[in-house]
Protein backbone atom coordinates (compact mmCIF):
# COMPACT_ATOMS: atom_id res chain seq x y z
CA UNK A 1 0.00 0.00 0.00
CA UNK A 2 1.06 3.54 -0.63
CA UNK A 3 2.09 5.82 2.22
CA UNK A 4 -0.61 7.80 3.96
CA UNK A 5 -0.25 11.48 3.20
CA UNK A 6 -0.46 13.69 6.25
CA UNK A 7 -2.68 16.32 4.71
CA UNK A 8 -5.42 15.78 2.19
CA UNK A 9 -5.88 19.48 1.49
CA UNK A 10 -2.85 21.72 0.90
CA UNK A 11 -2.31 25.34 1.93
CA UNK A 12 -3.93 26.64 -1.23
CA UNK A 13 -7.05 24.61 -0.44
CA UNK A 14 -6.34 22.11 -3.22
CA UNK A 15 -6.70 18.35 -2.94
CA UNK A 16 -4.09 15.61 -3.51
CA UNK A 17 -4.90 15.48 -7.22
CA UNK A 18 -5.00 19.25 -7.54
CA UNK A 19 -8.78 19.59 -7.55
CA UNK A 20 -10.75 22.29 -5.78
CA UNK A 21 -13.13 21.04 -3.06
CA UNK A 22 -16.20 21.26 -5.28
CA UNK A 23 -14.59 19.90 -8.44
CA UNK A 24 -15.37 16.55 -10.07
CA UNK A 25 -12.71 14.24 -11.45
CA UNK A 26 -12.32 13.81 -15.20
CA UNK A 27 -15.28 11.86 -16.46
CA UNK A 28 -15.58 10.00 -19.74
CA UNK A 29 -18.78 8.17 -20.60
CA UNK A 30 -19.55 5.98 -23.59
CA UNK A 31 -22.85 4.32 -24.41
CA UNK A 32 -23.34 1.12 -26.42
CA UNK A 33 -19.90 -0.43 -25.96
CA UNK A 34 -20.88 -4.12 -25.83
CA UNK A 35 -22.49 -5.77 -28.84
CA UNK A 36 -24.10 -8.73 -27.05
CA UNK A 37 -25.83 -6.76 -24.30
CA UNK A 38 -29.21 -5.14 -24.96
CA UNK A 39 -27.73 -1.96 -23.57
CA UNK A 40 -24.35 -1.01 -22.19
CA UNK A 41 -22.23 1.84 -20.95
CA UNK A 42 -18.64 2.47 -19.94
CA UNK A 43 -17.54 5.11 -17.49
CA UNK A 44 -14.18 6.45 -16.45
CA UNK A 45 -14.24 8.72 -13.44
CA UNK A 46 -10.75 9.51 -12.24
CA UNK A 47 -9.02 6.14 -12.38
CA UNK A 48 -12.31 4.24 -12.06
CA UNK A 49 -13.01 2.14 -15.13
CA UNK A 50 -16.42 0.49 -15.03
CA UNK A 51 -18.53 -1.44 -17.52
CA UNK A 52 -22.28 -1.85 -17.11
CA UNK A 53 -24.59 -3.99 -19.22
CA UNK A 54 -28.36 -4.40 -19.25
CA UNK A 55 -30.24 -7.43 -20.52
CA UNK A 56 -33.99 -7.66 -20.88
CA UNK A 57 -36.82 -7.55 -20.37
CA UNK A 58 -36.32 -11.27 -20.87
CA UNK A 59 -37.63 -14.58 -19.57
CA UNK A 60 -36.82 -15.09 -15.93
CA UNK A 61 -35.15 -18.20 -14.59
CA UNK A 62 -35.91 -19.78 -12.19
CA UNK A 63 -39.54 -19.19 -13.15
CA UNK A 64 -40.98 -19.23 -9.64
CA UNK A 65 -39.10 -15.98 -9.00
CA UNK A 66 -41.28 -14.19 -11.55
CA UNK A 67 -43.78 -11.59 -10.39
CA UNK A 68 -47.24 -11.45 -11.95
CA UNK A 69 -47.60 -7.68 -11.86
CA UNK A 70 -44.13 -6.41 -12.73
CA UNK A 71 -40.67 -7.21 -13.93
CA UNK A 72 -37.96 -8.31 -11.53
CA UNK A 73 -34.89 -6.09 -11.58
CA UNK A 74 -31.70 -7.92 -10.75
CA UNK A 75 -28.31 -6.40 -10.31
CA UNK A 76 -24.82 -7.71 -9.81
CA UNK A 77 -22.01 -5.39 -8.83
CA UNK A 78 -18.69 -7.15 -9.17
CA UNK A 79 -15.06 -6.14 -8.92
CA UNK A 80 -12.42 -7.70 -11.12
CA UNK A 81 -9.62 -9.40 -9.14
CA UNK A 82 -7.10 -6.97 -10.69
CA UNK A 83 -9.17 -3.85 -10.01
CA UNK A 84 -7.56 -3.08 -6.65
CA UNK A 85 -4.07 -3.01 -5.13
CA UNK A 86 -4.28 -6.39 -3.40
CA UNK A 87 -5.89 -9.05 -5.59
CA UNK A 88 -9.56 -9.40 -4.76
CA UNK A 89 -11.01 -12.89 -4.74
CA UNK A 90 -13.52 -13.17 -7.59
CA UNK A 91 -16.10 -14.71 -5.24
CA UNK A 92 -18.68 -12.09 -4.23
CA UNK A 93 -17.72 -10.41 -0.97
CA UNK A 94 -20.25 -9.17 1.59
CA UNK A 95 -19.53 -5.66 0.40
CA UNK A 96 -20.40 -6.61 -3.17
CA UNK A 97 -23.62 -8.29 -2.06
CA UNK A 98 -24.64 -5.16 -0.20
CA UNK A 99 -23.69 -2.85 -3.05
CA UNK A 100 -25.58 -4.99 -5.55
CA UNK A 101 -28.66 -4.54 -3.38
CA UNK A 102 -28.38 -0.80 -2.84
CA UNK A 103 -27.54 -0.17 -6.50
CA UNK A 104 -30.59 -2.19 -7.56
CA UNK A 105 -32.74 -0.22 -5.14
CA UNK A 106 -31.33 3.04 -6.47
CA UNK A 107 -32.28 2.12 -10.05
CA UNK A 108 -35.68 0.51 -9.33
CA UNK A 109 -37.60 3.77 -8.76
CA UNK A 110 -36.60 4.97 -12.24
CA UNK A 111 -38.07 2.01 -14.14
CA UNK A 112 -41.70 1.40 -15.06
CA UNK A 113 -41.52 -2.11 -13.58
CA UNK A 114 -45.22 -2.75 -14.23
CA UNK A 115 -44.72 -2.55 -18.01
CA UNK A 116 -43.15 -6.01 -18.22
CA UNK A 117 -44.84 -8.52 -15.89
CA UNK A 118 -43.35 -12.02 -15.50
CA UNK A 119 -39.97 -10.97 -16.89
CA UNK A 120 -36.54 -10.00 -15.60
CA UNK A 121 -34.23 -7.13 -16.33
CA UNK A 122 -30.62 -7.84 -15.43
CA UNK A 123 -27.88 -5.34 -14.77
CA UNK A 124 -24.30 -6.51 -14.65
CA UNK A 125 -21.62 -4.16 -13.42
CA UNK A 126 -17.94 -4.98 -13.66
CA UNK A 127 -15.47 -2.71 -11.93
CA UNK A 128 -12.28 -3.10 -14.00
CA UNK A 129 -10.34 -0.60 -11.94
CA UNK A 130 -11.42 0.97 -8.68
CA UNK A 131 -10.48 4.45 -7.49
CA UNK A 132 -13.06 5.34 -4.84
CA UNK A 133 -16.69 6.08 -5.52
CA UNK A 134 -17.26 2.97 -7.61
CA UNK A 135 -20.86 2.53 -6.49
CA UNK A 136 -21.73 6.00 -7.72
CA UNK A 137 -20.00 5.62 -11.07
CA UNK A 138 -21.62 2.18 -11.40
CA UNK A 139 -25.10 3.65 -10.93
CA UNK A 140 -24.40 6.39 -13.47
CA UNK A 141 -23.29 3.77 -16.01
CA UNK A 142 -26.00 1.20 -15.18
CA UNK A 143 -28.77 3.72 -15.71
CA UNK A 144 -27.31 4.59 -19.12
CA UNK A 145 -27.11 0.89 -20.02
CA UNK A 146 -30.83 0.58 -19.27
CA UNK A 147 -31.61 3.64 -21.38
CA UNK A 148 -29.47 2.19 -24.16
CA UNK A 149 -31.50 -1.04 -23.91
CA UNK A 150 -34.59 1.03 -24.61
CA UNK A 151 -36.24 0.40 -21.26
CA UNK A 152 -38.83 3.08 -20.42
CA UNK A 153 -37.68 5.17 -17.49
CA UNK A 154 -38.95 8.09 -15.42
CA UNK A 155 -35.52 9.70 -15.47
CA UNK A 156 -31.87 8.73 -15.63
CA UNK A 157 -30.36 7.93 -12.25
CA UNK A 158 -27.08 9.66 -11.61
CA UNK A 159 -24.87 9.32 -8.57
CA UNK A 160 -22.04 11.21 -6.95
CA UNK A 161 -20.46 11.25 -3.51
CA UNK A 162 -19.52 14.13 -1.29
CA UNK A 163 -17.65 13.88 1.96
CA UNK A 164 -15.30 15.46 4.43
CA UNK A 165 -11.53 15.34 4.23
CA UNK A 166 -9.46 17.19 6.79
CA UNK A 167 -11.96 19.93 7.65
CA UNK A 168 -13.36 20.53 4.22
CA UNK A 169 -16.54 19.29 2.55
CA UNK A 170 -15.45 17.96 -0.85
CA UNK A 171 -17.08 16.52 -3.95
CA UNK A 172 -16.38 13.19 -5.63
CA UNK A 173 -13.87 11.54 -3.30
CA UNK A 174 -11.05 9.55 -4.84
CA UNK A 175 -9.57 6.42 -3.32
CA UNK A 176 -7.22 7.98 -0.74
CA UNK A 177 -9.79 10.56 0.35
CA UNK A 178 -12.37 7.82 0.70
CA UNK A 179 -10.09 5.61 2.79
CA UNK A 180 -8.60 8.14 5.19
CA UNK A 181 -11.08 11.00 4.98
CA UNK A 182 -13.54 11.77 7.77
CA UNK A 183 -16.80 10.96 5.97
CA UNK A 184 -18.23 9.75 2.69
CA UNK A 185 -21.82 10.39 1.55
CA UNK A 186 -22.78 8.71 -1.73
CA UNK A 187 -26.02 10.04 -3.21
CA UNK A 188 -28.02 8.86 -6.24
CA UNK A 189 -30.57 11.16 -7.75
CA UNK A 190 -33.26 11.36 -10.40
CA UNK A 191 -32.59 15.03 -11.16
CA UNK A 192 -35.86 15.84 -12.92
CA UNK A 193 -37.89 14.47 -10.01
CA UNK A 194 -35.50 15.76 -7.34
CA UNK A 195 -35.69 12.28 -5.83
CA UNK A 196 -32.86 10.69 -3.86
CA UNK A 197 -32.74 6.98 -4.66
CA UNK A 198 -29.54 6.05 -2.85
CA UNK A 199 -28.15 7.54 0.29
CA UNK A 200 -25.46 6.08 2.45
CA UNK A 201 -22.93 7.52 4.78
CA UNK A 202 -20.00 6.48 6.85
CA UNK A 203 -17.83 8.70 8.97
CA UNK A 204 -18.74 11.52 11.31
CA UNK A 205 -20.50 14.71 10.26
CA UNK A 206 -22.39 17.34 12.22
CA UNK A 207 -25.97 17.97 11.11
CA UNK A 208 -24.85 21.13 9.35
CA UNK A 209 -21.96 19.39 7.55
CA UNK A 210 -24.28 16.58 6.54
CA UNK A 211 -26.65 19.08 4.95
CA UNK A 212 -23.79 20.72 3.04
CA UNK A 213 -22.48 17.34 1.90
CA UNK A 214 -25.89 16.24 0.60
CA UNK A 215 -26.35 19.53 -1.23
CA UNK A 216 -22.87 19.35 -2.75
CA UNK A 217 -23.43 15.76 -3.87
CA UNK A 218 -26.71 16.80 -5.52
CA UNK A 219 -24.84 19.63 -7.28
CA UNK A 220 -22.28 17.08 -8.53
CA UNK A 221 -25.08 14.79 -9.71
CA UNK A 222 -26.42 17.67 -11.80
CA UNK A 223 -23.09 18.08 -13.60
CA UNK A 224 -22.72 14.35 -14.30
CA UNK A 225 -26.35 14.22 -15.49
CA UNK A 226 -25.40 16.61 -18.30
CA UNK A 227 -22.52 14.30 -19.30
CA UNK A 228 -24.85 11.29 -19.17
CA UNK A 229 -27.31 12.88 -21.56
CA UNK A 230 -24.48 14.00 -23.82
CA UNK A 231 -23.15 10.42 -24.00
CA UNK A 232 -26.57 9.03 -24.92
CA UNK A 233 -27.03 11.64 -27.63
CA UNK A 234 -23.56 11.00 -29.03
CA UNK A 235 -24.35 7.35 -29.66
CA UNK A 236 -27.69 7.93 -31.30
CA UNK A 237 -26.63 10.97 -33.30
CA UNK A 238 -23.74 8.88 -34.67
CA UNK A 239 -26.07 6.07 -35.69
CA UNK A 240 -28.31 8.54 -37.45
CA UNK A 241 -25.26 9.82 -39.32
CA UNK A 242 -24.45 6.31 -40.58
CA UNK A 243 -27.97 5.82 -41.88
CA UNK A 244 -27.90 9.07 -43.80
Amino acid sequence: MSQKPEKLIDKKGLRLDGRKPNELRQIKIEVGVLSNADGSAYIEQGKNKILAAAFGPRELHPKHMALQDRTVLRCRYHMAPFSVQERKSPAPSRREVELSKVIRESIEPSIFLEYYPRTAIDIFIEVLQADGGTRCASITAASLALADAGIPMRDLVVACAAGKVDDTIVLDLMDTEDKIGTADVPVALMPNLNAITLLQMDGILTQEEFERAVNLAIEGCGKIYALQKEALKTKYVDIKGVEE
Partner: protein
Amino acid sequence: MASVITRVKQKQIAQLIAKGKRLDGRDLTDYREVKVEQGIIERAEGSARVLLGKTEVMVGTKIEIGEPFLDTPNEGVLTVNAELVPLASSTFEPGPPDENSIELARIVDRGVRESKAIDLEKLCIEPGKKVFVIFVDVYVLNHDGNLIDASALAALAALLNTKMPNYEMEEGEVETRPGYNPLPMRRHPIAVTFAKINDKLIVDPWLEEEQVMDARLTIATDDDGNVCAIQKGGSGYFAPKQVLEAARIASEKAEEMRKKLDW
Protein backbone atom coordinates in the same frame (compact mmCIF):
# COMPACT_ATOMS: atom_id res chain seq x y z
CA MET B 1 -38.91 -10.71 2.63
CA ALA B 2 -42.30 -10.68 1.01
CA SER B 3 -45.33 -11.85 2.86
CA VAL B 4 -49.02 -11.32 2.60
CA ILE B 5 -50.96 -8.26 3.62
CA THR B 6 -54.39 -7.47 2.28
CA ARG B 7 -54.98 -4.53 -0.04
CA VAL B 8 -57.60 -3.22 2.40
CA LYS B 9 -55.07 -3.10 5.21
CA GLN B 10 -52.43 -1.55 2.99
CA LYS B 11 -54.83 1.23 2.15
CA GLN B 12 -55.89 1.63 5.76
CA ILE B 13 -52.29 2.00 6.95
CA ALA B 14 -51.48 4.51 4.23
CA GLN B 15 -54.63 6.57 4.78
CA LEU B 16 -54.14 6.72 8.54
CA ILE B 17 -50.56 7.87 8.11
CA ALA B 18 -51.70 10.64 5.80
CA LYS B 19 -53.73 11.85 8.81
CA GLY B 20 -50.72 11.56 11.11
CA LYS B 21 -51.94 8.39 12.83
CA ARG B 22 -50.94 4.74 12.93
CA LEU B 23 -52.85 1.49 13.27
CA ASP B 24 -51.30 0.68 16.64
CA GLY B 25 -52.09 4.14 18.01
CA ARG B 26 -48.54 5.50 17.93
CA ASP B 27 -47.58 8.97 16.74
CA LEU B 28 -45.51 9.04 13.55
CA THR B 29 -42.24 9.44 15.44
CA ASP B 30 -42.97 7.11 18.38
CA TYR B 31 -41.02 3.96 19.06
CA ARG B 32 -42.74 0.82 20.24
CA GLU B 33 -42.00 -0.27 23.79
CA VAL B 34 -38.28 -1.00 24.14
CA LYS B 35 -36.84 -3.53 26.56
CA VAL B 36 -33.14 -4.22 26.91
CA GLU B 37 -31.69 -7.06 28.97
CA GLN B 38 -27.95 -7.54 29.27
CA GLY B 39 -25.76 -10.48 30.28
CA ILE B 40 -28.22 -13.24 29.51
CA ILE B 41 -25.81 -15.71 27.91
CA GLU B 42 -23.11 -16.72 30.38
CA ARG B 43 -20.91 -18.42 27.81
CA ALA B 44 -20.62 -15.27 25.72
CA GLU B 45 -18.20 -12.48 26.67
CA GLY B 46 -21.12 -10.09 26.33
CA SER B 47 -24.77 -10.45 25.45
CA ALA B 48 -28.07 -8.65 25.24
CA ARG B 49 -31.64 -9.17 24.21
CA VAL B 50 -33.73 -6.34 22.83
CA LEU B 51 -37.48 -6.33 22.47
CA LEU B 52 -38.91 -3.67 20.20
CA GLY B 53 -42.61 -4.34 20.43
CA LYS B 54 -42.75 -7.96 19.30
CA THR B 55 -39.46 -7.80 17.39
CA GLU B 56 -36.86 -9.72 19.33
CA VAL B 57 -33.12 -9.71 18.69
CA MET B 58 -30.35 -11.33 20.70
CA VAL B 59 -26.69 -10.44 20.33
CA GLY B 60 -23.76 -12.33 21.74
CA THR B 61 -20.15 -11.20 21.57
CA LYS B 62 -17.11 -13.45 21.60
CA ILE B 63 -13.50 -12.41 21.88
CA GLU B 64 -10.60 -14.24 20.30
CA ILE B 65 -6.99 -13.45 19.61
CA GLY B 66 -6.12 -12.93 15.96
CA GLU B 67 -4.15 -10.89 13.50
CA PRO B 68 -4.88 -7.23 12.75
CA PHE B 69 -5.67 -5.97 9.25
CA LEU B 70 -2.63 -4.84 7.27
CA ASP B 71 -3.79 -1.22 7.07
CA THR B 72 -4.59 -0.98 10.82
CA PRO B 73 -1.76 -2.88 12.57
CA ASN B 74 -2.42 -1.13 15.90
CA GLU B 75 -6.12 -1.82 16.13
CA GLY B 76 -8.28 -4.70 17.26
CA VAL B 77 -10.73 -6.19 14.80
CA LEU B 78 -14.50 -5.85 14.87
CA THR B 79 -16.60 -8.40 12.99
CA VAL B 80 -20.37 -8.22 12.78
CA ASN B 81 -22.51 -11.02 11.47
CA ALA B 82 -26.29 -11.32 11.37
CA GLU B 83 -28.47 -14.40 11.16
CA LEU B 84 -32.10 -14.21 10.17
CA VAL B 85 -32.94 -17.36 12.09
CA PRO B 86 -35.71 -19.42 10.42
CA LEU B 87 -37.71 -19.60 13.63
CA ALA B 88 -38.12 -15.81 13.56
CA SER B 89 -40.38 -15.61 10.54
CA SER B 90 -42.05 -17.80 7.95
CA THR B 91 -40.16 -15.79 5.33
CA PHE B 92 -36.69 -16.68 6.67
CA GLU B 93 -35.05 -19.78 5.27
CA PRO B 94 -32.06 -21.77 6.45
CA GLY B 95 -28.92 -21.42 4.39
CA PRO B 96 -26.04 -19.07 3.80
CA PRO B 97 -26.66 -15.40 4.58
CA ASP B 98 -28.73 -13.66 1.91
CA GLU B 99 -28.51 -10.00 0.93
CA ASN B 100 -30.93 -8.99 3.69
CA SER B 101 -28.88 -10.46 6.49
CA ILE B 102 -25.63 -9.19 4.97
CA GLU B 103 -27.08 -5.70 4.70
CA LEU B 104 -28.36 -5.87 8.28
CA ALA B 105 -24.93 -6.90 9.58
CA ARG B 106 -23.20 -4.20 7.57
CA ILE B 107 -25.53 -1.45 8.82
CA VAL B 108 -24.97 -2.51 12.44
CA ASP B 109 -21.23 -2.71 11.77
CA ARG B 110 -21.13 0.74 10.19
CA GLY B 111 -22.86 2.39 13.15
CA VAL B 112 -20.43 0.94 15.68
CA ARG B 113 -17.33 1.36 13.51
CA GLU B 114 -17.88 4.84 12.12
CA SER B 115 -18.90 6.37 15.44
CA LYS B 116 -15.65 4.92 16.84
CA ALA B 117 -17.72 3.45 19.65
CA ILE B 118 -15.00 0.99 20.61
CA ASP B 119 -11.47 2.21 21.27
CA LEU B 120 -9.94 -0.39 18.96
CA GLU B 121 -6.39 0.74 19.68
CA LYS B 122 -6.78 -0.54 23.22
CA LEU B 123 -7.43 -4.01 21.78
CA CYS B 124 -3.94 -4.27 20.33
CA ILE B 125 -1.70 -6.81 22.04
CA GLU B 126 1.34 -6.78 19.77
CA PRO B 127 1.28 -4.28 16.88
CA GLY B 128 0.94 -5.96 13.49
CA LYS B 129 0.83 -9.41 15.06
CA LYS B 130 -1.71 -10.01 17.79
CA VAL B 131 -4.92 -8.19 18.58
CA PHE B 132 -8.25 -8.99 20.14
CA VAL B 133 -10.93 -9.83 17.60
CA ILE B 134 -14.47 -9.00 18.66
CA PHE B 135 -17.20 -11.06 17.07
CA VAL B 136 -20.66 -9.53 17.29
CA ASP B 137 -23.30 -12.04 16.29
CA VAL B 138 -26.77 -10.68 15.73
CA TYR B 139 -29.46 -13.31 16.14
CA VAL B 140 -32.95 -12.29 15.03
CA LEU B 141 -35.44 -14.35 17.07
CA ASN B 142 -38.75 -12.76 16.11
CA HIS B 143 -39.39 -10.52 13.13
CA ASP B 144 -42.08 -7.91 13.60
CA GLY B 145 -40.42 -5.10 11.69
CA ASN B 146 -37.48 -2.73 12.15
CA LEU B 147 -34.82 -5.36 12.62
CA ILE B 148 -32.16 -2.73 12.01
CA ASP B 149 -32.83 -0.56 15.07
CA ALA B 150 -33.41 -3.57 17.31
CA SER B 151 -30.19 -5.21 16.11
CA ALA B 152 -28.10 -2.03 16.43
CA LEU B 153 -29.43 -1.47 19.93
CA ALA B 154 -28.82 -5.09 20.94
CA ALA B 155 -25.29 -4.97 19.51
CA LEU B 156 -24.47 -1.84 21.49
CA ALA B 157 -26.03 -3.28 24.65
CA ALA B 158 -24.00 -6.45 24.23
CA LEU B 159 -20.77 -4.52 23.61
CA LEU B 160 -21.37 -2.42 26.73
CA ASN B 161 -21.78 -5.69 28.58
CA THR B 162 -18.68 -7.33 27.10
CA LYS B 163 -15.82 -8.36 29.35
CA MET B 164 -12.28 -8.51 28.07
CA PRO B 165 -10.02 -11.18 29.51
CA ASN B 166 -7.00 -10.09 31.51
CA TYR B 167 -3.80 -11.23 29.92
CA GLU B 168 -0.04 -11.17 30.19
CA MET B 169 2.61 -11.81 27.57
CA GLU B 170 4.91 -14.71 28.32
CA GLU B 171 7.66 -15.48 25.81
CA GLY B 172 5.62 -14.14 22.95
CA GLU B 173 2.53 -16.08 23.98
CA VAL B 174 -0.63 -14.56 25.38
CA GLU B 175 -1.50 -16.03 28.75
CA THR B 176 -4.93 -15.24 30.16
CA ARG B 177 -5.15 -14.31 33.80
CA PRO B 178 -8.15 -14.40 36.13
CA GLY B 179 -10.47 -11.40 36.14
CA TYR B 180 -11.99 -9.26 33.45
CA ASN B 181 -12.08 -5.69 32.22
CA PRO B 182 -14.95 -3.99 30.44
CA LEU B 183 -14.52 -3.44 26.70
CA PRO B 184 -13.13 0.09 26.08
CA MET B 185 -16.34 1.77 24.87
CA ARG B 186 -16.44 5.51 24.24
CA ARG B 187 -19.59 6.24 22.22
CA HIS B 188 -23.21 5.13 22.06
CA PRO B 189 -24.35 5.18 18.42
CA ILE B 190 -28.11 4.70 18.05
CA ALA B 191 -29.71 3.82 14.73
CA VAL B 192 -33.12 5.27 13.94
CA THR B 193 -35.03 3.83 11.01
CA PHE B 194 -37.71 5.66 9.04
CA ALA B 195 -40.23 4.27 6.61
CA LYS B 196 -41.69 6.48 3.92
CA ILE B 197 -45.40 5.80 3.49
CA ASN B 198 -47.68 8.13 1.56
CA ASP B 199 -44.81 10.63 1.36
CA LYS B 200 -44.65 10.82 5.18
CA LEU B 201 -41.80 9.67 7.40
CA ILE B 202 -42.60 7.34 10.28
CA VAL B 203 -40.17 6.09 12.92
CA ASP B 204 -39.77 2.42 13.88
CA PRO B 205 -42.01 0.75 11.27
CA TRP B 206 -43.47 -2.56 12.37
CA LEU B 207 -43.88 -5.47 9.99
CA GLU B 208 -47.11 -4.42 8.28
CA GLU B 209 -45.85 -0.89 7.82
CA GLU B 210 -42.67 -2.27 6.27
CA GLN B 211 -44.79 -4.18 3.78
CA VAL B 212 -46.51 -0.95 2.74
CA MET B 213 -43.49 1.37 2.78
CA ASP B 214 -42.01 2.85 -0.39
CA ALA B 215 -38.54 3.23 1.04
CA ARG B 216 -36.55 2.99 4.21
CA LEU B 217 -33.88 5.22 5.71
CA THR B 218 -31.66 4.41 8.68
CA ILE B 219 -29.60 7.13 10.33
CA ALA B 220 -27.21 6.44 13.19
CA THR B 221 -26.10 9.34 15.35
CA ASP B 222 -23.56 9.55 18.17
CA ASP B 223 -23.76 11.09 21.64
CA ASP B 224 -23.13 14.60 20.25
CA GLY B 225 -25.87 14.36 17.64
CA ASN B 226 -23.38 13.87 14.80
CA VAL B 227 -24.47 11.68 11.93
CA CYS B 228 -22.21 8.63 11.67
CA ALA B 229 -23.90 6.12 9.38
CA ILE B 230 -26.75 6.13 6.90
CA GLN B 231 -28.40 3.52 4.75
CA LYS B 232 -31.31 3.94 2.39
CA GLY B 233 -33.20 0.81 1.46
CA GLY B 234 -36.24 -0.21 -0.53
CA SER B 235 -37.18 0.62 -4.05
CA GLY B 236 -38.59 4.09 -3.45
CA TYR B 237 -36.97 7.50 -3.07
CA PHE B 238 -36.71 10.48 -0.71
CA ALA B 239 -36.87 14.20 -1.34
CA PRO B 240 -33.68 15.99 -0.24
CA LYS B 241 -35.55 17.92 2.46
CA GLN B 242 -37.00 14.68 3.86
CA VAL B 243 -33.48 13.35 4.29
CA LEU B 244 -32.39 16.41 6.25
CA GLU B 245 -35.54 16.30 8.36
CA ALA B 246 -34.88 12.62 9.07
CA ALA B 247 -31.33 13.38 10.23
CA ARG B 248 -32.66 15.89 12.75
CA ILE B 249 -35.40 13.59 14.04
CA ALA B 250 -32.91 10.71 14.24
CA SER B 251 -30.60 12.59 16.59
CA GLU B 252 -33.55 13.61 18.82
CA LYS B 253 -34.87 10.05 18.97
CA ALA B 254 -31.38 8.67 19.64
CA GLU B 255 -30.95 11.13 22.50
CA GLU B 256 -34.29 10.02 23.99
CA MET B 257 -33.21 6.40 23.72
CA ARG B 258 -29.87 7.06 25.45
CA LYS B 259 -31.67 8.86 28.27
CA LYS B 260 -34.20 6.08 28.66
CA LEU B 261 -31.46 3.45 28.85
CA ASP B 262 -29.18 5.63 30.93
CA TRP B 263 -26.25 5.33 28.48
